[in-house]
């Protein structure tokens, strides 16, 4: 059985603890609150670890299970109804077992294919792309989850005075969170107007390009090296991401035969409050309402498009269309998708 269209039945999110605002963060880091407000533009974020002590309070599996559980409940489905699970993350709890399989266990799912995608900002789109193929191959319902945690890469106890600026930026840019979507072969019940996934763009375009983002891990052989575990080429990102975003919009529109005026909602890349605003200025969708979350959630990596979808679905009216755009600068993955409510 092959199907052309898949549907987004419901979303769920998990943002740990209370939001940490710039005043609190500035105090912890010994940095300037004004600097965060002005140059990053992110107002709050959530951490699954205690910024004061560094103690890890919630694992990635905790967050992903929570988001997945909420999405299932919202879709009115039982774990047994789910026929595949895809989890995208850059920061798994362990290498094995995968966080995806642990989440399946936590959610009471058994005897089903479980995939984990190692990805960054484009992970949600990769999950949608894979999920779309699985549904086209005959599966009726799947759960897609994206999430990331920062405790391995940020240490708020360190004083900002001793931190290079590019490292300090990481501390104010990122947050922890997870989001999930239930993908189904059928629109909701009778009388429901399903949200159809009309198109997906998922393309790695990093040939001969140095990485814009770098996240490392270490083991017995190299745990004592002094290299940086998280690094971003902010100059390259600022230069290329807006332009690539514009291309993604045109490409999706061209593929679907939609015009710029037919886009009611736009989900732009969520790098930071400031960067997202800059990208929005360039996107050729004048009539579209922006659906963003980064100023409240921080950059939560693989969770971002799911958090945006969680905000979009209640606003997406009958007949309305939405475009999502994301650029993963690690290896310059251009990604996006298009939705339409019947």
């Amino acid at each position: 059985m092959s199907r052309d269209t898949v549907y987004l039945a419901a979303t769920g999110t998990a943002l740990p603890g209370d939001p940490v605002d710039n005043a609190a963060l500035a105090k912890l880091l010994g940095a300037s609150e004004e600097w965060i407000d002005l140059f990053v533009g992110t107002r709050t974020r959530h951490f699954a670890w205690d910024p004061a002590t560094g103690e890890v309070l919630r694992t990635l599996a905790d967050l992903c299970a929570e988001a997945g559980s909420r999405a299932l409940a919202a879709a009115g489905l039982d774990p047994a109804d789910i026929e595949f699970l895809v989890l995208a993350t850059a920061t798994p709890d362990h290498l094995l077992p995968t966080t995806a399989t642990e989440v399946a266990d936590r959610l009471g799912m058994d005897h089903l294919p479980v995939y984990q995608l190692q990805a960054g900002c484009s992970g949600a789109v990769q999950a949608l792309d894979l999920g779309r193929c699985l549904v086209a191959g005959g599966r009726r319902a799947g759960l897609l989850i994206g999430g990331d945690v920062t405790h391995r890469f940020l240490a708020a106890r360190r004083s900002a005075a001793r931190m290079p600026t590019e490292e300090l930026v990481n501390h104010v840019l990122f947050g922890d969170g997870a989001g999930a979507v239930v993908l189904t072969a059928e629109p909701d019940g009778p009388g429901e107007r399903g949200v159809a996934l009309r198109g997906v763009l998922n393309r790695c375009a990093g040939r001969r390009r140095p990485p814009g983002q770098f996240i490392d891990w270490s083991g017995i052989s190299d745990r004592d090296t002094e290299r940086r575990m998280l690094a971003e080429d902010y100059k390259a990102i600022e230069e290329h991401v807006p332009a690539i975003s514009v291309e993604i919009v045109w490409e999706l529109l061209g593929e679907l035969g939609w015009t710029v005026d037919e886009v009611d909602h736009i989900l732009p890349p969520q790098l930071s409050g400031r960067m997202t605003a800059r990208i929005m200025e360039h996107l050729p969708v004048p009539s579209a309402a922006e659906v963003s979350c980064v100023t409240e959630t921080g950059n939560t990596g693989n969770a971002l498009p799911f958090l945006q979808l969680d905000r979009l679905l209640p606003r997406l009216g009958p007949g309305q269309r939405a475009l999502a755009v994301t650029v993963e600068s690690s290896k310059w993955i251009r990604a996006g998708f298009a939705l339409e409510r019947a």
Partner: protein
Amino acid sequence: MEDIAIVGLDCAFPGAADADAYWDLLMRGGDAIGSVPARRWDPDDFPGVPGAGGFLDDADVFDADFFSVSPREAAAMDPHHRLLLHSAWRALEDSGRAPGDLAGSDTGVFVGMMGGEWGRLTMGTPARATPQLGAGSSNGMAANRISYHFNLTGPSLAVDTACSSSLVAVHLAAGALRAGECDTALAGGVNVLLSPSLGLVYAQMGLAASDGRCKPFSADADGIGRSEGVGLVVLRRLSDAVADGQRIYAVLRGSAVNQDGRSNGVTAPNRWSQQAVVQAAYRRAGITPDQVAFVEAHGTGTVLGDTIECAALGSVHGVPRPSPCALGSVKGNLGHLEGAAGIAALIKTALALHHRVVPASRFADRENPQLQLAARGMRLLKSPLRLPAGETVAAVSSFGMGGTNTHAVLATAPRPAVSRSYAAPAGASVAGAAPRSGETGVFTLSADTPEALRRNLLAQAEDVAGRPPGDAARLCWSSNRIKTGLPYRFAVTARDSAELADALRGAAADDLPATAAPRPWARPVVAFLFTGQGSVHAGMTAPLYRDSPLYRRHLDEVDAALAPHLGASVREVILGGGERVHEPAFAQPALFAVGCALARTLAALGVTPAAVLGHSLGEYAAAVTAGALDLDEAARLVVRRAAVLRDLPHGGGMLAVRAGAEPVAELLAGEPEVRIAALNGPSDTVLSGPREALSRLERALGAHGVDARPLDVTHAFHAPPTAPMAEALREESVQATAPTLPFASTRYGRMLREEPLDGAYWADQAAQPVLFDAALGALVAETFPTHLLEIGPRPQLLPLAGRAGHAAGLEGLHPAPGPEATGRELAETVAALHRAGLDPVWDALYAPGHRAAERLRPYVFCADHHYWDRQSGPAPAPASATRQHPGTPSPEPHPPTRPEHAPGPEKPGLVETGLVEPGPAEPELTEAGPVLAAVVDAVVEVGGHPRERVLREARFYEDLGFDSVMIMQLKSRVESRLPQIGEVSVQQLLPALRSVGTLADFLDDMVMAGAA
């Protein structure tokens, strides 16, 4: 044929204490067969019987106290019955309802069990018979006892068709539901291996597996291995289950029963009848064989039985089909549960449809090629089968040795329709459409003793902690539906599951935590105290408004009532958070709105006051709550009052003084413009007058060491400067009726009598001092409240009541105790009142989206008391008797009840029964007198209770489990112990039979009368 929903289930099988463990056992292909426990029989005594089988670890455990069954009766009760009682309670809880809520309903009970071994073992010698044994040993009583203990009045019957009993019971239950004989049915079966007798029979017939294991459809199959267990399902008509929002494991589409008739011998299976029953069931279910994804077969693992069953199934299922019909039998894991075999198979199938995976069939890897399964459109499940999405149909077979065959068709449950949060049209408020995440709920739990509460708190903590983290609201709502109704009540507020798990674990660590309370004997009597004006503040109750849809609705309603008079939305003024709320035009309407909305919110939650009191302005909301003023009329008056006030010059003030009226009066002599505005308590007085005069007084009082604090008000209330406000009210024609509740008037300082709440009343209550102290004193003295609820945005009256000594022994609660108060404080108020005996309207606490059933772990019974009577042992007679000839129809019974002279625990033959627990040293009864001692002795003798449990307060029926038969026995024991009273008629005795103490007092009187 109407579909029947399986909405709840419970089971205990060898190696699987509950349904979750059963599923785990099935999914890992577990083997539940072990050697015969020493407490049953010594396998060496019966060389002809396999020394292995499926045995429950704790078939002898029974929580007799929970069911108010006396230890003596519990020991006499057939162990089958005991297992059923536990399982029935848990199954009903699993169906999402408190078992107590079904009391008096027409719920039916259908229990399959075979034989009557307990009766034979215990009553084989007529001399051994006792009333308890008589009632304890009949099969019919197995169902009837459930009906009795749960007070279920629908059909109640035991079914014995040998090994198909429990599936036939399900068939009959479904029929009774379809016929409208009952709306809910408990159905299932039980089997306990009390003796090796039937094992000997199987051996003699050549049907016993050498290793005690059924190996269904295997080339190694060599016969039956016996096993035991209990299983029950809760059934409803599908339409009812869906309408009630119950979770559904699977749907019973149709079933059939037939008979072999005159087959090849009474115990021989009949292929044609098996085929016919399968076809009949499919016909009734409206399906064709190609739709059946798998069949849970009878599959005993006898070569003949397997061959005939596969031939019958093959002739039905061997049709053109997309894939072969999967085949398996749980007997490979559990063995043959005889009377309970069908329910074990049905529960396995229901769980498989629920989880959408069919477990592999044990011993399938050496499939018997003679069965030709592939040629017959079937395949034995050698690995788990993942079921595709969409509807799946499965079937279950169960065949009786005497030729009664049954077959049932099941299907996956329909998915409940959910209203999607985003289905709202574009532009709709996002917050209003979906339930807010993080809503505060109240998690409730109840148990029959503090110990049981702790045990169950731990079980729930473990269960909640094991779930994916998330909101607690659905768990809370479900707990309100399921886990209420037992004497010891626990209630705690929670937003998310992690917080809930911590709270449960913490509570379990305490002896009787603050979040739990003992059996409340009556409903709480609640007085509402409506706060006066000093409590107004910017943004008051805003967090509650954000959190509670209920409060939101009621504040909106009151706002709508005020708006036409006020010409503005007081809600906006309140929630706006600005200082406008303090303006004279708004302060009073705002406080009135908050008071009315809070009272209405509480009323919607089932918290209704027994009496009301309002402090000054609070009296308007009190009058609305008491039905004396309707909301519109009160709104009009309050706005009128505020409007007059707005036009009065500012300048006056008020001063709260921590002293009584008398010491203040002396100082007032020098300040003629200052009046006493309120007498709030023996050391709480409020003064009203010009600010300069009040400042002088404040200094003077300070010099005397008396605390005084200016109040945040714009005018000198209850004093001449605000007299125009009072006079304006006097001219109003007020539409008022007599309050329908006791109304403590702060105008009169007593309960309101016949006085009308007319314009003059409202004028006087504005002009005259507020007599709060006296009014509250009268309220407490005349209405005996157990709880004082402050209805206002900040604590004002509860502290006053405390200092005045009016709150001694009363619990004070405040649903909105300050600017930070959210929905949690409101929920905490409801939780506290529930602990005190209130059964709130729980639904009102939750957004509709959170009123969704979650299965909770069912009740964990006390496992401390074993009622087991070993059938062999050092005592020579029983052992030699059972050893005589295998298959002796009636082995020498071992009396399950204690002989007249209690044996010590070391007495051989009785192992750890509730009866032989050594009691502590004789309690101190000498002080209490010989009559009480005689009553206690008699009770212990009749009921077999441990002596320390027979307290003065112990009630005969509820606590000691006495029934009429035991009462008769008690009467004769008492008479023989107290010869001086002679013969007492039952009529005389009955009124005294409330508790041990009341009986002793009554008999004491008789002894005294005889002596006089």
